[in-house]
């Protein structure tokens, strides 16, 4: 197993609240790694420090052996981590295809002069980006919506489009923040298939999820956060039996 991402003693405080305390974990290349925990355990905070949305108060993230930039989301994306948001954040007034093409921004290179003079290279790049965008839309299962404004898509399709946009950045790791939230049973099944396909195609997946069934069926390994600390890590089966986890979810009476 090759380690793709390692978190070393990550700390994050919000004023007096210690949101993350010495969280260390490693994610192997090609696995689906789940991050679970009760509400307020620090899952999304972990996501936000990992992807650079928040500055970090201690510790570091190491990806492929080099330290990730801190508090600079656009550089983290360039390092190969793409994310989605818990409450969908699409470019609502842009079409689905434009959303995906925007995702391709860091993997394209046309500069001011190229665009001003519409060089052959630029036109070619633009054409390829549109082509690639359509491919990705087909990959996540919404090719028919290429020209639909993002805000007019159904909820499930918006989730898919957000994943498509993240994939367009050509990430090594895809970080999904509660992708199944608000989805109906059918949509969840579809999402699960999509995540498996993505992993099958060589992209590591980090998953935060409330839907325990989804996590347990999908993930290779799971870490459990409670009050900002990692209380367990292992295969879903191991974690399910862990008394600390049961206590965190169900209260002290149920652990024995």
């Amino acid at each position, binding site marked *: 197993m090759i380690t793709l991402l390692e978190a070393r003693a990550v700390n994050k405080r919000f004023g007096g609240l210690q949101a993350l305390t010495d969280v260390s974990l490693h994610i192997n290349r090609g696995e689906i790694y789940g991050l679970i925990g009760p509400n307020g355990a620090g899952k999304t905070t972990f996501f936000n420090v990992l992807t650079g949305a928040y500055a970090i108060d201690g510790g570091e993230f190491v990806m492929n052996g080099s330290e990730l930039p801190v508090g600079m989301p656009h550089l983290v994306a360039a390092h190969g981590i793409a994310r989605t948001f818990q409450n969908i*954040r699409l470019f609502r007034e842009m079409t689905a295809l*434009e959303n995906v*093409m925007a995702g391709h*921004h860091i993997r394209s290179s046309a500069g001011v002069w190229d665009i*001003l003079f*519409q060089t052959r290279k630029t036109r070619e*790049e633009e*054409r390829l980006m549109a082509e690639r965008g359509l491919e990705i839309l087909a990959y996540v299962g919404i090719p028919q919506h290429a*020209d639909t404004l993002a805000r007019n898509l159904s909820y499930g399709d918006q989730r898919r489009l957000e994943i498509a946009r993240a994939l367009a*950045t050509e990430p090594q790791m895809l970080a999904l923040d509660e992708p199944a939230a608000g989805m109906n049973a059918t949509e969840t099944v579809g999402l699960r298939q999509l995540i498996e396909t993505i992993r099958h195609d060589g992209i590591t997946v980090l998953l935060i999820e409330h839907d325990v069934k989804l996590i347990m069926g999908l993930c290779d390994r799971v870490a459990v956060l409670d009050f900002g600390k990692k209380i367990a890590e292992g295969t879903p089966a191991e974690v399910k039996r862990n008394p600390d986890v049961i206590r965190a979810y169900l209260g002290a009476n149920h652990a024995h």
Partner: protein
Amino acid sequence: MTSFSTSRSLPGPLNDPRTQRILIIVGALVAPLIALSFGASWVRILDFALLYVLLAIGLNLVVGFAGLLDLGYIAFYAVGAYTWAFLASPHFGLHLPFWFILPLGAAFAGIAGVFLGFPTLRLRGDYLAIVTLGFGEIIRIFLNNLNQPINITNGPQGIDQIDSLNIAGLDLARNIDLFGFKIHSLVLYYYAFLFCVVIALIVVRRFQISRIGRAWASIREDEMAAKAIGIDTRGMKLLAFAMGATFGGVSGGLFAAFQGFVSPESFSLLESIAILTMVVLGGMGNLAGVVLGAVLLTALPEILRFIAIPLQMMLFDKVYLDPEVLRMLLLSLAMILMMLWRPAGLLPARTRYAHREGRTA
């Protein structure tokens, strides 16, 4: 092309985008000749309309594409105008050629844009508007007061006797005879300005349907998501400010040459707001809309001036409402009506940024 959304209601052949385009081109070419038959002052209004179109195109890039509300845009117009005034007037005794001053003015304006951009990178919406508003005022106040201890701007008196636009020996301030046809100076200026507007439209259009245009749009839509997909929002915002300012600088230089006189009072906050109104009224993000907004809002007040005074004299034998007051009144009324019935502008951006052309072109 960003076709007119009203085309649905037009009869037969006018529905065809190609016909529309030809009509617009022909209209733009013959407009000054028709206007001239009503009097030279109407051509002058058209010339000003084109300068405003140029400003509106630039401001639209900042506000409409990148979503950065800029209330001090007129400052860049001032930078361009004063650059021209300094380098082509008896004030400093310099008379440099246009091909040098115009790009220089644009560059200075662009740099001013970056200066404005840097401190405001983290601001959005109302807060950004307030800072940009202050920036616009700072520039104006500088121009007003930099006449001592060393006289740089000549203060409130402004700078006069500015050189006119002189292209390869052809002085646009003079009427010329072409094979017996007399071409009026104002008409010459019209075509020079029209040329600049067309270039500006092509440039902006290219950016709109490019990777940079998409990056701007994504910042406008959701800055946090834009960062998450790797867009360098700082760089892209600075680029938007700088590019938008460049158009203001060009327009300002042309203004100085055309008018022959600049003074700080041409660059007041009201002007910034007027340009923003053009952008919003026409349809933020839609180039055709922005052009329409600029032309309407420059021409209508003038037509109003033409009508209001005689009408009042006829009815009351006395002018109660100054056309200038009426202008502000009608502007406000137009904005209110628009917010009620056409909140996205006269020609709304259909999808504010259309990619289809980019794909098929």
